[in-house]
């Protein structure tokens, strides 16, 4: 029984980017696990620690030596393993090779009266300490980085330069070198709070040593510390004050410090005259400050998270306040400059901004979106006032992209346009639509609230999707630079909220506009590709919202393209099936049986005169169902269509019960085939019941 010790491996670096650090911290345990596993080093639990300047893992109960292996494998019988001359056959050598032993080392033993060859594999026990240098080096090399770099004259790569390594098994240093960094027991401290660093006597003392250096060693702990301090600040500020901590900025801030101290700061109240979205953008995106609201309204207070010495909070707050003042001064200046001209005046400058290299500028996009929006208005049969607002909003939607404020603070696109539109007297609906046409901006975001915004949003998104499909820039795997998937989902959500237009027609219109613009591509192929892209997104959305996959497939088999119809039908089918599970199971079984038996070539013009009673009953039920289904589908009443189909259950069951389809009389048989075809055809426009799994 070997004894065990704790292993410490700390990679000391220059500041690793915040998000990359988070990802690496999450992957490190598995990497260490695999590395130890490959070397067959037994171990216990693992803990990961990380700060911007270090990635560390502690492994408990690391066995001092690897286990000795003594495994025996049974092979082929002697009769098969050796030929007549007693030489090993291919079977024997193959077995030996497979087990990693020499063929001469095979042993013969008797088992149940038959002689077999046996292979024994022995792997000697090794000292863990001799294996670890290679294991740990492998760990460093296995950490994946979105971007990695070289430094000085070394060939090795890492996220940022590696400056020190601490590798201890118990009290002993594991010797290794990576890009000039030689392992030891010295860890660096916090740059300001503990610059001398510390020597780690033994692996178990690591966390305590970091704490003595005033370093908060995990992301979770730093996050909790920030959140707790922020809650305390809110309480101090009084009733209804809240600090907003968006996840992205918080993650960044957590990984921008080794010892975070939240501090409360303020800016001059006069800046509150600037739209709050710009102020928030400047604080969150540019400076990583957290804004403070009072009863939902932005205040002139904010939280900074410092990595400095809290004893100098006064200095640090003062410096940050000056920076934010300069930023807000810029914002205010830009905002006021932008207001000097009407929003309309910026439209012509949109030709300075590229939408997509092959698809031209934002100006061109604006023109296309205007044309498409006009078509959508006709299709939706909105009244003239709304159509006018849509046309105006479509024209102004992108104008703010060339305003100073948006160039400087990109996340406020649309929002600024809305402010500027309001300021120069545009209609309230138009201003709202300008802000809303980017919605939904992310999964779970609201869709535009106003009808004008909805139509402009659809036109904008369909234009983007069709354009990129036309030039073959489809999203692939994880690469979707124009966020086409999100755009498609956005269009679908907006359509589902009750915009009565045909997506198929909108796609065709958009592609036609591109062709008129001189972009050449195969319109039919593009139409099909865009339609199937939307169908796939609709499918994904339905699955995410809990629709059964077989119902979706059954509905899609009827060749529907409009997301609204796909969704309505799938939900109706799921609901109907839930209401009468037995009936649907029977009907799908009968459908599947009919579909298997029938001869699709036979046609469906049966001879009613030759029918027996059950045939005649089925035929009349089919005719009745056909009429009802057609009427129901024309009225978009899918539940009624399903109900009409479910009336076929008894007649088809009777038919199968009473009638022998494969009659010896070929004429009778053919007539029955036709009847089955007629039965299957009724379903064709509704759903493929054969795809419904019986439950």
């Amino acid at each position, binding site marked *: 029984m070997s004894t065990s010790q704790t292993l410490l491996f700390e990679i000391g670096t220059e*500041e690793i980017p915040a998000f990359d650090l988070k990802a690496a911290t999450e992957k490190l345990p598995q990497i260490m696990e695999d590395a130890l596993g490959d070397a067959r080093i037994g171990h216990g639990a693992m803990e990961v620690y990380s700060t911007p300047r270090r990635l560390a893992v502690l492994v408990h109960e690391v066995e001092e030596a690897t286990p000795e292996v003594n495994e025996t494998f049974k092979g082929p019988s002697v009769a098969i393993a050796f030929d007549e001359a007693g030489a090993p056959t291919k079977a024997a050598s193959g077995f030996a090779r497979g087990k990693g032993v020499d063929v001469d080392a095979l042993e013969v033993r008797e088992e149940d009266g038959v002689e077999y060859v046996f292979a024994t594999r022995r792997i000697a026990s090794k000292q863990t300490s001799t294996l670890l240098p290679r294991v740990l080096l492998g760990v460093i090399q296995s950490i994946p980085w979105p971007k990695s770099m070289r430094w*000085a004259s070394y060939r090795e790569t890492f996220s940022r330069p590696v400056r020190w390594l601490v590798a201890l098994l118990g009290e002993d240093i594991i010797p290794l070198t990576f890009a000039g960094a030689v392992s030891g027991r010295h860890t660096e401290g916090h740059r300001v709070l503990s610059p001398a660093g510390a020597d780690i006597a033994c692996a178990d003392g690591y966390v305590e040593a970091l704490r003595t250096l005033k370093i908060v060693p995990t992301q979770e702990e730093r996050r909790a510390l920030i959140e707790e301090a922020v809650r305390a600040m809110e309480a101090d500020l009084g009733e209804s004050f809240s600090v907003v901590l968006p996840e992205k900025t918080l993650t960044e801030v957590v990984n921008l410090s080794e010892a975070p101290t939240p501090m409360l700061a303020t800016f001059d109240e006069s800046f509150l005259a600037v739209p709050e979205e710009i102020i928030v953008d400047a604080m969150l995106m540019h400076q990583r400050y957290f804004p403070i609201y009072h009863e939902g309204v932005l205040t002139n207070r904010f939280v900074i998270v410092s990595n400095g010495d809290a004893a100098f909070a006064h200095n640090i707050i003062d410096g940050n306040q000056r920076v934010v003042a*300069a930023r807000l001064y810029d914002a205010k200046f830009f905002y006021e400059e932008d207001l000097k001209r009407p929003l309309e005046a910026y439209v012509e400058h949109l030709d300075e901004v590229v939408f997509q290299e092959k698809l031209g500028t934002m100006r061109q996009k604006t023109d296309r979106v205007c044309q498409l929006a006009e078509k959508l208005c006709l299709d939706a049969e909105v009244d003239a006032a709304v159509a006018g607002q849509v046309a105006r909003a479509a024209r102004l939607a992108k104008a703010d992209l060339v305003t100073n404020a948006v160039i400087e603070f990109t996340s406020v696109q649309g929002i600024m346009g809305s402010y500027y539109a309001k300021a120069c007297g545009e209609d309230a609906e138009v201003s709202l639509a300008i802000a809303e046409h980017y919605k939904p901006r992310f999964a779970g975001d609201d869709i535009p609230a106003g009808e004008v915004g909805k139509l402009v949003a659809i036109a904008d998104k369909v234009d983007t999707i069709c354009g990129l499909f036309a030039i073959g820039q489809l999203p692939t795997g994880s690469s979707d630079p124009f966020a086409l998937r999100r755009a498609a989902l956005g269009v679908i959500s907006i359509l589902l909220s009750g915009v009565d237009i045909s997506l198929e027609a909108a796609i065709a219109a958009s592609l036609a506009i591109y062709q008129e613009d001189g972009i050449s591509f195969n319109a039919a192929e593009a139409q099909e590709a865009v339609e199937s892209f939307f169908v796939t997104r609709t499918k994904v959305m339905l699955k995410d919202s809990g629709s059964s996959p077989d119902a979706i497939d059954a509905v899609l088999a009827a060749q529907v393209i409009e997301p609204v119809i796909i969704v309505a039908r799938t939900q109706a089918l799921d609901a109907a099936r839930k209401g009468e599970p037995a009936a649907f199971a029977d009907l799908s079984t009968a459908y599947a049986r009919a579909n298997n038996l029938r001869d699709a070539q036979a046609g469906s013009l049966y001879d009613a005169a030759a029918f027996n009673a059950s045939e005649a009953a089925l035929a009349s039920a089919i005719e009745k169902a056909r009429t009802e289904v057609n009427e129901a589908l024309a009225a978009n009443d899918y539940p009624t269509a399903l109900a009409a189909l479910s009336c076929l259950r008894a007649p088809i069951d009777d038919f199968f019960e009473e009638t022998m389809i494969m009659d010896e009389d070929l004429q009778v048989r053919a007539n029955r085939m036709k009847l089955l075809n007629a039965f299957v055809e009724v379903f064709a426009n509704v759903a493929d019941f054969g795809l419904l799994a019986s439950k």
Partner: protein
Amino acid sequence: MRLQEFWASQGCVVMQPYDNEVGAGTNAPATTLRALGPDTWRTAYVQGCRRPTDGRYGENPNRLQFYYQFQVLIKPSPDDIQDAYLASLRAIGIDTDAHDVRFVEDDWESPTLGAWGLGWEVWIDGMEVTQFTYFQQVGGFECSPVPVEIAYGLERLTMFVQGVDSVYDIIWAKGPDGVTFTYGDVYLENERQYSKYNFEVADTSFLFKEFADREAECMKTLEAGLPLPAYDSVLKCCHTFNLLDARGVISATERMGYILRVRTLAKACCESYMEHVVGLPADADAKGGER
């Protein structure tokens, strides 16, 4: 001056500003070209930088169309470079222990130079004062060994040290007799005039012609195997392009085209430098550098 003394004591050749318009200290040949090749190189210099589109007619307290960078380039990058940098801040009177100094991810890329690197922007109490970059590639060539570049924004730093909120309030010199010169005394009129020139006056047909002439001159100089003088033409092209950009006469589509033309020249200079000065076969290295 104290930055110069500090980096001189670290073994850097203290150079004087390059006498050609550049958009950043990086573009001076002492950085761009010297970043290439295997030789050790250490330099530090002040560089006046021109960014015509950043002009604000002297009305914005933080933005200038002409400003100063203090540029340090050391190849190969020393192991203790971050500590040396922090020491340089202390040398100019910033008590790094009493402030919040941070290294915030900022990857650098120069499309016109075909160059990129990884590093940070350095913040002091939230103010960005320095760009800190490990060059990975210049002119399409992989940097080997890797140089580190430190570019201080001198106005920002001085504003921080002096605690003033407008660049024009910086005290530049104060005589024993109390006579004071501020940054505004020296450069405010300059900003006003150049902003007007850059945005409104510069003759665009002259500039378009200059761009084309300089482009041709660059190629001719390269044919003669002289990358150093050829590089001057690249800088001229860059500046001319920036002026045209400020005049608002380059559309978005043309923009890419011009950037590509400048990059082609810059790459050609780097190739020529590799061949004639470093003495390495340019092609082999270029392949390793593709990314």
